[in-house]
């Protein structure tokens, strides 16, 4: 083989880049998120499976209907309780009382940083 002085380092760099997740993790899979379940309710405003995958689309929909069509109507009646707002602060956070222990749990893991809280007030964290 020829030119191995150049080709070998090249191949090593290539293999290093391609296996980045393997050596970067170093066998450590990180901790799975454990979002805190609300204590004041049994079910979410939509089926849990849908919420896990699509809550951001639901929020987007709420935002659009509130801000563009000024339709703040109730989200849903769950267990006889009406949540009067299609609202982040006054809806979701009524049950999911902690942003840190709920939203952030998953978001840190999935590496997303929703910018919503730049404007929306987040609940006071209890500890």
């Amino acid at each position, binding site marked *: *083989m*020829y*030119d*191995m002085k150049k*080709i070998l380092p*090249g*191949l090593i760099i*290539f*293999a290093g880049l*391609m*296996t*980045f*997740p*393997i050596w*970067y*993790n170093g*066998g*450590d*899979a*990180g901790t*799975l*998120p454990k979002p805190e379940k609300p204590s004041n309710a049994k079910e979410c405003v939509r089926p849990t*499976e849908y919420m*896990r*995958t*699509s809550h*951001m*689309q639901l*929020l*987007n929909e709420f*935002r659009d209907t509130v801000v563009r069509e000024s339709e703040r109507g109730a989200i849903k009646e769950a267990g006889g309780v009406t949540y009067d707002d299609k609202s982040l602060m006054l809806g979701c956070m009524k049950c999911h009382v902690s942003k840190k222990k709920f939203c952030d749990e*998953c978001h840190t*893991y*999935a*590496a*997303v*940083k*929703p*910018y919503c809280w730049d404007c929306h007030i987040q609940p006071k964290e209890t500890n």
Partner: protein
Amino acid sequence: MKVLYPFIAVLALVALAFVGVKAAGLQYLFGVVIPYMAFAMFLGGFIYKVLHWAKSPVPFRIPTTCGQANSLKFIEQNKLDCPSTFWGVTGRMLLEVFLFRSLFRNSKAEVHDGPKLVYGSSKYLWLFGLIFHYTFLVIVIRHMRLFVGHVPDFLHAIEAGDALFQVGAPLLYQSDLIILLAVGFLFLRRLINANVRYISLPADYFPLFLIFAIAVTGILMRYFLRVDIINIKQLAVGLATFSPVLHGEIGSIFYIHIFLVCALMAYFPFSKLMHMGGVWMSPTRNMANNSRMVRHINPWNDPNIKPHSYADYEDEFREFMTDANIPVEKE
């Protein structure tokens, strides 16, 4: 046919993954076994190919010269297009690899009324080729967030830049729109331009369709058929730490997406996509044009065969040459 067969092949891959997961319940096969096999084929195949190429000696300087060579002092050398030094070659290679300089030179020839042959510059291939490769790179780098447990800051930065306009939720990535546009252009170029269509083979269309399908399934997954990213990340990080777990429900669209990616990885080392490694090894680009400064000795020369100059040759055969009336230099 040249367009249809690769198209059908990609559809067949999609159908295979869909049926395998939906009807046969082969989540483990498509989520764990095939990804490992495909990655091993990609990495092993890539290295094998490069080492295989490294076996060919390139004893002579064969750079494509596109400018004035190093010559007399008062003739200006084109240092990038006909480099004669290490740094010249380095500059040429970097521009080639990162900016696709040789595509920038692309020209087109057209016959106008007259008949008159007209040459013009044609930068579209360069532009869309460059856009395509960079958006692909950005997308692949962004995907690393699914594979690493603790996501480094530079990934957040790339993601924030890509979602700069903060459209909708989940945020729209510009790279998603741009890659479809760029692949679409590269495909239409092969289809519409008669000259290019004539030389295009199924092996040219297949990777285009495959990459387009990967992008489309990814986009469907992000913006339309939402999937559970937490479960997917658990699987992906598991793959990267060699302890894969399939946990909870993951939509079939995800399995289609990664099956297509696996097909791409497995196909990569044995296809034209190996230009990724090949561009670094092109002797027409990576050699300095210094034949007049450095003596290059052919490595497979048999040392027992001594050089035989013309003068020696004439000495040896002078008699016969004069007999045959062949002119000789020394009488």
